[in-house]
């Protein structure tokens, strides 16, 4: 990342610039792609910004799932450990990808672990916050959950195809 020049104005308006950047980024995430600017601002209000160092666990297999993560920058490995505790990388995700989305449906245990492959910036969305959003702004909830259903369906289809090709 290129270092930004600090000016008096950036001290005053730095927060707004950050918010604008985040809104632009959230608009590129498939889950939120169909939202308007105003709707994105509402979603931004429930996003938690988290930074993970290389090799740091974002969540571990077996823990109750509570949040979905969107990768802003960096790289995340979805891993599963075998009986000998050897890590098998199931997939690798980079910018604009999201993972842990099943936690938005219920609090069943995570089916795999997520580890930052290098320094990674993410936005986390808590299930209950999204549920509240659904109640308060049904039109946003409708768009987000519809996109989520389509993405999960697409991933399921891809997994089925992989199984059939094996």
């Amino acid at each position, binding site marked *: 990342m290129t270092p930004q020049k600090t000016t008096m104005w950036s001290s005053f308006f730095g927060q707004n610039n950050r918010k604008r950047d985040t809104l632009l980024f959230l608009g590129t995430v498939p889950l939120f792609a169909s939202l308007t600017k105003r709707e994105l601002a509402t979603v931004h209000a429930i996003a938690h910004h988290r930074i993970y160092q290389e090799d740091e666990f974002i969540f571990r297999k077996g823990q109750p799932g509570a949040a979905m993560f969107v990768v802003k920058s960096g790289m995340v490995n979805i891993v599963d450990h075998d009986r000998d505790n050897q890590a098998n990388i199931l997939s690798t995700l980079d910018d604009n990808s999201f993972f842990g989305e099943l936690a938005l449906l219920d609090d069943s245990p995570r089916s795999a672990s997520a580890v930052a492959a290098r320094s990674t910036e993410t936005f986390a969305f808590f299930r209950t916050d999204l549920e509240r959003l659904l*109640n308060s702004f049904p039109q946003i909830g409708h768009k987000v959950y519809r996109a989520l259903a389509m993405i999960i369906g697409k991933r399921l289809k891809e997994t089925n195809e992989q199984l059939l090709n094996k």
Partner: protein
Amino acid sequence: MSNYLTSEENLIRLRRARIIYTVAAAMAVSAALYLLWALRELIVPTVIGMLMAYICLPLIGYLKNRGLSRSWAVLLLFGIFCLILFSAIKFTGDLIPDRKTELELQARVRYKLNDKFEGIMGLGHGGNWFYHLFGRELEPLRAGIDEALRISEDSHRLFTAFHENSRETGAEQVEERYWRYHLANRQRDLARERTGPDHREDNFATAEVPGRTGAAPGSSLLLTLFNAVSLWLITPLVFLILLVDDGKLKRELVHNMPNRYFEMTLTTVDNINRALGRYLRGTFIECFLVGTSFTICLFLIGLEMQWAAAIGIIAGLANAIPFLGPAIGLLVGVLYAVMAEEVTPLLPFIDGDNLLPAVLVVVAIVQLADNAIFQPYVLGGAVDLHPLIVVFGVMGGAVIFGFAGMLFAVPAIMIGKVVITTIFRQFRAYHII
């Protein structure tokens, strides 16, 4: 930077960091405890502001769903809250008696109490069966209350001055019948002094409050009211700040959590929020229903609306205290029934003579409604504390913070219980312990 240090240097650095963090934490906790003690008078107004904001939070969501922006919703709720708070302060201020009314009330309550006691016990005819059965146990209680209500010699002189409407005080004349009550009380005292030795000149209730005797009784009352009101100014401020906050406090807490505890913190805060919300909103609605029921029923049996509302508010508030709450409601209702003189009941079969049983019936009906309808419907299983914990908590709260301590002891214990059990449940779920 730590990458440039050897493992031994790193170890020293970690040890140093641990010491600094521990000392800083200890200093922060000590400072917080000191501030809590120093500002203890602000605790109750602040807690009430916080509780009301917490209870009102879902209303913001409701108003937003109805098309109102968040700012307008907050402004509307703040306006309503200020209106209720200042009406409550004014209502309470109107109920606080001045020195003359206080003396009248003291004489009236004392006279009526003794009169009713003699009537119930049949003391005019040497005592009835009830007196012979329970009189020995009840007599010390009556004597204790009687002693507490005694008007001291200084106050008697002031009362006399009020009665004679002297030019020095410029006060209104004391109502004749209360003066007669006072004289009857004094005659009874003289008779007792002649017959019994257990007479004491001084007692705690009749001791003069500094600054309340003398020529200007009204000014000290205003000062007391001003002090109380200025402390309560913090309540709407806390209410407004928390409503405007829009979850920023929670987000700040979660933001400062290490990554390892991030999801666990989110879940824990949410679970605590849900459990507390259910309990606090449930308790608020239950207290409101009990208070309203008391007010309506007492008004129906003939109490003036002002007093019915005052007793309703006290009984409603006290209802937050399990076990003791209904007893406080009963006590206040009975006290009023004992000293009531003119009743204008809407129910035809009630008059001044059977007001006391009517109040008892009202208390029984309201408690029945509370146990059978309000609690199961509004609270569900939200309250689940062992009675022993409740009793100790309420007594402990009363010792430390007085009536406010009694009132907030159970909610505070509930908050502690919910927080601790939720944290430990989440610690286990996330394999931290």
